[in-house]
């Protein structure tokens, strides 16, 4: 009975500890100039978006659009639906964020795990009444929270500006933000694993980006399988095809996730397969990281 009460207490404590680590990670990120620069850039972008976009809407369509309120962008006699114009802008934002935004997010969060494992800090943290799994999971969730908050600011801000300026609110655009956040989680799980293994920020950042690029390569090899004809022997073709297929199904579906972000923005049918097949990758990477971290001597 005493043991079960103790176990329940420890579970409750684990949740409190995870929350504390998430809060600490956010505070830590706030103290980095990179994250502040990112927020400043986002603010500038939102201000720019609010200033640049100036549309005259007549009977539900854009009659004319203006940049900075002075240079008229004549649309001519064609009436462009507001929803189309807003969607085009949002797809452009999503396209930029699925590449540059993702890279920036990986850079900003790249040193969170290696910093945790610094001598003199890991000793202090790991000697608390806390399982190491909680420590590494709390820090990883903290990193996701940091990126989540940044994305929320960017996507939420853009959505508000565009809705305010055009009167058209596209909820799919907000969903696209979550898709990109999931893509980040896929890459970040690799960074956590490599960070725990190497305690090296640059190597873990490279590993995170490589997982995205390998996912892209795997998609290309899976989709255009003519490349296997470059091999003469049948067994070579079979082996090459097997490797490519394994890569495709094991690695995160970088391209398909990106496509889903765009689909969400355009309010097109969502494809759940990339999520369902990428999620095990995230889980396995984090589980391996926790397992390795738990058996290390510090």
């Amino acid at each position, binding site marked *: 009975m005493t043991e079960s009460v103790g176990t329940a207490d420890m579970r409750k404590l684990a949740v409190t500890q995870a929350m504390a680590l998430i809060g600490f990670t956010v505070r830590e990120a706030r103290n980095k100039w990179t994250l502040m620069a990112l927020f400043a850039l986002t603010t500038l972008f939102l201000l720019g978006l609010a200033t640049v976009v100036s549309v005259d809407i007549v009977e539900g369509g854009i009659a004319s659009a203006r940049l900075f309120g002075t240079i008229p962008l004549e649309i001519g006699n064609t009436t462009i639906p507001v929803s189309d114009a807003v969607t085009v802008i949002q797809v452009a934002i999503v396209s930029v964020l699925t590449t540059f935004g993702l890279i920036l997010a990986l850079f900003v969060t790249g040193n969170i795990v290696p910093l945790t494992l610094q001598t003199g800090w890991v000793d202090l943290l790991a000697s608390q009444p*806390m399982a190491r799994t909680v420590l590494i999971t709390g820090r990883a969730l903290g990193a996701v929270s940091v990126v989540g908050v940044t994305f929320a600011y960017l996507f939420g801000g853009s959505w508000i500006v565009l809705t305010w300026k055009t009167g058209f609110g596209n909820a799919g655009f907000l969903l696209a933000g979550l898709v990109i956040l999931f893509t980040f989680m896929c890459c970040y799980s690799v960074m956590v694993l490599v960070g725990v293994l190497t305690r090296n920020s640059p190597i873990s950042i490279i590993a995170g980006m490589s997982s995205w690029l390998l996912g892209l390569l795997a998609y290309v090899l899976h989709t255009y399988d003519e490349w296997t004809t470059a091999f003469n022997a049948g067994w070579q073709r079979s082996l090459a095809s097997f490797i490519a297929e394994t890569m495709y199904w094991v690695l995160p579906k970088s391209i398909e996730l990106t496509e889903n972000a765009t689909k969400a923005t355009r309010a097109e049918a969502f494809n759940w397969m990339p999520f369902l097949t990428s999620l095990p990758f995230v889980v396995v990477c984090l589980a391996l990281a926790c397992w390795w971290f738990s058996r290390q001597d510090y």
Partner: protein
Amino acid sequence: MNVIETHGLAKTFGGALGSKVEALRGVDLQVGAGEAFGLLGPNGAGKTTLVKILLGLVEATGGEATLLGHPAGTPISRREVGYMPERRNYPGFLTAGQVLDLFGKLLGMDATSRRQRTAIVLEEVEMSAWRDQKVGGFSKGMQQRLALAQALLPDPRVLFLDEPTEGIDPLGRVSIRGILRRNLEQGKTLFVNSHMLGEVELLCDRVAILVKGKVRREGPLSSLRAPNPEYRLTLAGDDEDAARAALIATGQEAKPIAAPPGLTVWRLEVDDRSQLNGVLDGIRGAGLEIEEIQRIRASLEEVFVQTINDASDGTPSAASPGGIQTSSKNSPVEVSVATREADND
């Protein structure tokens, strides 16, 4: 009740591909509640490894250890434990108050308790004025005090201290020693891991000397430092030959010790008081004047060096580079212990 127990505790670093290093080789220790226990040993003796196993930072490869009745290394065993490591690396952007708040959260303390305990421990280590200052600007001594405050935060039953006064000025040492004594009086158990034998001598009532992963000596400080049946005899005058002849006549080996001008100093080994008086009578009978007679009491340093030498078959310990240096040609009594920066077991 023992708050710390180890039975046959062993740790071997390295594996199948690399060379193996046996850091601990069957350590048996018991530390009772309210004790001030000192763990001594030269570099690489396994002291830090032992503490880290108890705190779950290192996994034992053999034996058993319990902390407050729980298997060592489990989170529940660390709930009422404070740890002040030798090296600490607090994030520089946090203030002292924020550091303690973070660790309070990790201990599961509610906001009120965190606020109260933070104020109490900062007051205790005389750091209240620095509560809102960033740790990045702290001196080594201030970081040391903050680490002590953090270790005291949970109001622990057991306090592990790894080199608690390393790098601290003499006044700071006195202050930290005072804090630790007050905690001892409150019934807390202190486990001090240190090279600074003088500090251990002033703080601990029981010590163990760990050499090459094994406990070579253990016991109350008073029993380890038990007086030797040896005396230091100072004679007036500098006629060493006459003094030697007189001592040999009384059956002594006549071992000289370095002496200031105008005096000769000798080491006497006697079985009891009556033999000592016989020697002194013989010296007086030879017309020599006694300046001083002093019973030699082994210092902890002596015990420490002797233990290391015994463990190394009389040769200087390979496990003590930079740690221990014997400085006297004439007597094993005169020993200096050099401190060092770090202990990486």
